[in-house]
């Protein structure tokens, strides 16, 4: 495969909602709720501090959440916020790629935190003035792996249509899925870890000439499914919405599987881990990032961007890995050099992983 004819990632646009709350403010807001059922509230506060998240940007002001006491109210709020935040991310991405809105041929929309029909991508055709012949692919349910999987699927599409431009939009508003009455440990951990955000990625087929110099190209992708691990992560869809399924086995599964999967993928392309200059890892949480570092024998600085992103915004599910990619592409000072290789990787419900080999 000629890497210069591979789909290019021309830009990443990132958007965070405006309502910033630091972790201690959120802990204080949860304390009363936890005390309804739990005796040792300090233990739960420590859990929220242990996820190494400094704060989150929320879709709504903090004081508006208690009134969202039904699935319908939360999902209605989700549609409104997803629509405006998604539009902002797409506008920023197109501006950074120096492309007009009319250039977009295909919009992939990824989420796992809300539902809408017509889907948010359809709403954005109106809001952004996208073309009437735009192809749309809304994808629900991939969870944290969705950002990596979305890049891979968009790249697949562009190999078939090398003259086209695709936008991958991920919007995750995790705060609007919170089950306030679920005081289980997995839900308490999730409420400390997950945040809200949107990221849009502009990808151009191999026939296009990206307007920005030195952008990464999607050289190859790999999906890996781990059989019989359905209860590791996901949602139980209940009357009140999405109830989190989160197992402590995620880091050990990463440790067991990721090294073999990455090595096999790279070997297929005549590469090994020493050739990868840039690691773009999903910010699953501090234990998941440590598992990546240990299993892949990465130097301490390799996942610095992922750690920083986790600290600044929390885990943004499918958008997280796109935020990390955007930060790498927009870095000032020492940006990636021509010929550099990168590996973008994420894991999510299934359980599964998606690997994307990049070349600058």
């Amino acid at each position, binding site marked *: 495969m000629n890497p210069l004819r591979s789909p290019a990632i021309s830009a990443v646009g990132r958007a965070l909602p405006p309502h910033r709350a630091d972790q201690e403010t959120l802990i204080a807001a949860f304390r009363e709720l936890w005390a309804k*059922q*739990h*005796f*040792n509230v*300090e*233990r*739960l506060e420590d*859990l929220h501090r242990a996820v190494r998240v400094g704060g989150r940007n929320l879709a709504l002001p903090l004081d508006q959440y208690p009134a969202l006491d039904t699935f319908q109210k939360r999902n209605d709020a989700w549609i409104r916020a997803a629509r405006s935040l998604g539009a902002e991310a797409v506008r920023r991405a197109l501006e950074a790629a120096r492309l007009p809105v009319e250039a977009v041929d295909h919009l992939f929309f990824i989420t796992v935190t809300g539902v809408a029909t017509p889907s948010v991508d359809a709403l954005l055709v109106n809001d952004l003035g996208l073309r009437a012949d735009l192809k749309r692919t809304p994808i629900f349910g991939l969870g944290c792996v969705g950002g990596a999987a979305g890049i891979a699927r968009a790249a697949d599409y562009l190999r078939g249509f090398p003259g086209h431009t695709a936008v991958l939009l991920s919007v995750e508003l995790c705060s609007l899925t919170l089950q306030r009455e679920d005081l*289980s*440990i*997995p839900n308490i*951990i999730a409420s400390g870890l997950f945040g809200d955000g949107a990221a849009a990625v502009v990808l151009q087929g191999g026939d296009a000439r990206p307007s920005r110099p030195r952008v990464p190209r999607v050289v190859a992708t790999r999906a890996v499914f781990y059989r019989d691990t359905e209860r590791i992560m996901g949602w139980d869809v209940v009357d009140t919405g999405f109830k989190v399924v*989160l*197992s*402590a*086995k995620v880091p*050990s599964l990463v440790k067991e599987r990721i090294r073999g999967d990455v090595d096999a993928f790279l070997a297929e392309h005549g590469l090994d881990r020493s050739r990868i200059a840039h690691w773009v890892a999903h910010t699953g949480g501090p234990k998941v990032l440590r598992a990546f570092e240990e299993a892949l024998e990465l130097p301490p600085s390799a996942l610095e961007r992922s750690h920083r992103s986790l600290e600044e915004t929390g885990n943004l599910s499918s958008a997280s890995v796109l935020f990390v990619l955007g930060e790498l592409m927009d870095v000032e000072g020492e940006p990636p050099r021509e010929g550099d290789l990168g590996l973008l990787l994420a894991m999510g419900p299934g359980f599964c992983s998606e690997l994307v080999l990049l070349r600058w």
Partner: protein
Amino acid sequence: MVSPEDDVRQQALGEIRRILGEELAVAAAVEPGKALVADLHLDSMELLTLAVGLENRFRVKLNEADGAGVKTVDDLANLVARRVCEGRA
């Protein structure tokens, strides 16, 4: 005659069995001598769920230093009994 500490120990054993069976779907028999990690294969989140469940039921706090000496179901039931009786003293 059963001492107050023995009585709480038995209650704690019952609660451990309930949490493991009902909340954590542990299928193995929960005997007092079974090791929580080596035999029952509890992971960190399940251990935490167990500890929090016992704290809520018996209104005691179990800290990290306590956990260092707890290997088996019996160790955990003894710890809860000790904490409850310390609170009563």
